[in-house]
């Protein structure tokens, strides 16, 4: 396998995928690096990629407010699979090493290989599910003043 495929297979998001699937994903992948303050994504702009974070922190922002951060070993961006636009700004906090998966290439690969499509869709749904769980907990504002 290529170095990129190996790196993808070592990431929690893709761990356990077959070598064939990892090679298909690696064909859509490239290494990227962001410097502190660099804009990774802009709200309202076309969402054309998923970023597999290897090292670093990205702040998801709604206007001036940090909604959440995405950290080492996490994943940023799946809107290319749905409505195709970013819904938040994403800004690097410090140096960020990531692997960029091209959304259009990956979409095509998922259509060509239904088993890859199924495996990736499940993993993306799991990300959405976990994000939803966290949003529920956060909406409760559990540390609010108990008066």
């Amino acid at each position, binding site marked *: 396998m290529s170095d990129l495929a190996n790196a993808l297979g070592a990431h929690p998001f893709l761990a356990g995928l077959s070598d064939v699937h990892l090679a298909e994903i690696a064909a859509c992948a490239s290494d990227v690096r962001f410097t502190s303050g660099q804009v990774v994504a802009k709200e309202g702009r076309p969402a054309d990629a998923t970023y597999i974070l290897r090292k670093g*922190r990205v702040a998801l922002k709604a206007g001036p407010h940090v909604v959440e951060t995405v950290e080492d070993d996490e994943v940023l961006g799946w809107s290319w699979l749905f409505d195709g636009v970013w819904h938040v700004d994403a800004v690097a*906090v410090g140096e960020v090493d990531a692997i960029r998966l091209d959304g259009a290439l990956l979409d095509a690969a998922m259509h060509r290989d239904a088993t890859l499509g199924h495996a990736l869709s499940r993993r993306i749904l799991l990300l959405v599910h*976990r994000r939803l*769980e966290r949003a529920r*907990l956060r909406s409760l504002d*559990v*540390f609010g003043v108990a008066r």
Partner: protein
Amino acid sequence: MTAAALDLWRPVPMPVVSKVQETADTVTIELDARDSPVRFAPGQFTMLYAFGHGEVPISISGDPAHPERLVHTIRAVGRVTNPLVAVEPGQVLGVRGPFGTGWPVHDAEDGEVVVVAGGIGLAPVRPVFHALAAHRERYERVWVLVGARTPADLLYREELERFAGAHGFDLRLTVDHADDTWDGPVGVVTRLLEAADFDPSRATLMTCGPEIMMRFVVREALRQGVPAEKIWLSMERNMKCAIGLCGHCQWGADFLCRTGPVMRWDHAMHRFDVGGL
């Protein structure tokens, strides 16, 4: 009634010797307990009496190796805690206790320890940090995962960082809402648990915070494979007598002042979904 039993009802006067403003509504006070040392297990609480106002249960948040210095961190949330937070060095508070159950610091030896705390819930686990640090060689990795509403609400931040540096704790902090002073993680505390690289089969998890937070923490811990009997939480109810007589703190079949506040998840789990308990 025996003299020993009488003592359980009688507050011991102790002078306040220091007070630290931790956050806008939370202080840590130290009482001089040299005349009546309070030997406690991490996780136990005392009944603190603000004379003229009343008595409330407050977890001990100091070092169990120093029973002569009784430390509590108190958040101003009501009729008794407001005057407690307002005390100044030289004033006297009444103390009964210690009461209740403690964290399983001995049972956790030879394995990893994962502490997940949120908000004022950090105070009841603070003695655990002291206990682990005193015998650091008995434990494998120690994870300290802490959440707060905002950076300004984070308790003991400098002390936690000192502990982490001196004793090799894996400290992770997160806030629900960031401000300009914060460039760390933003998100709920359960996310720190998702990201922590511990061996669930060798871990003892202790969690303290709002009940709903602990519910999410336990769910995540179970998902990661921590056995139910290795998950411990601290429950909070309206303790009054603190010796299992009055029933104010009843939670199902338990009086939490006696069989709590610290209890194992497999003991508590069936009541978590019962409304009104």
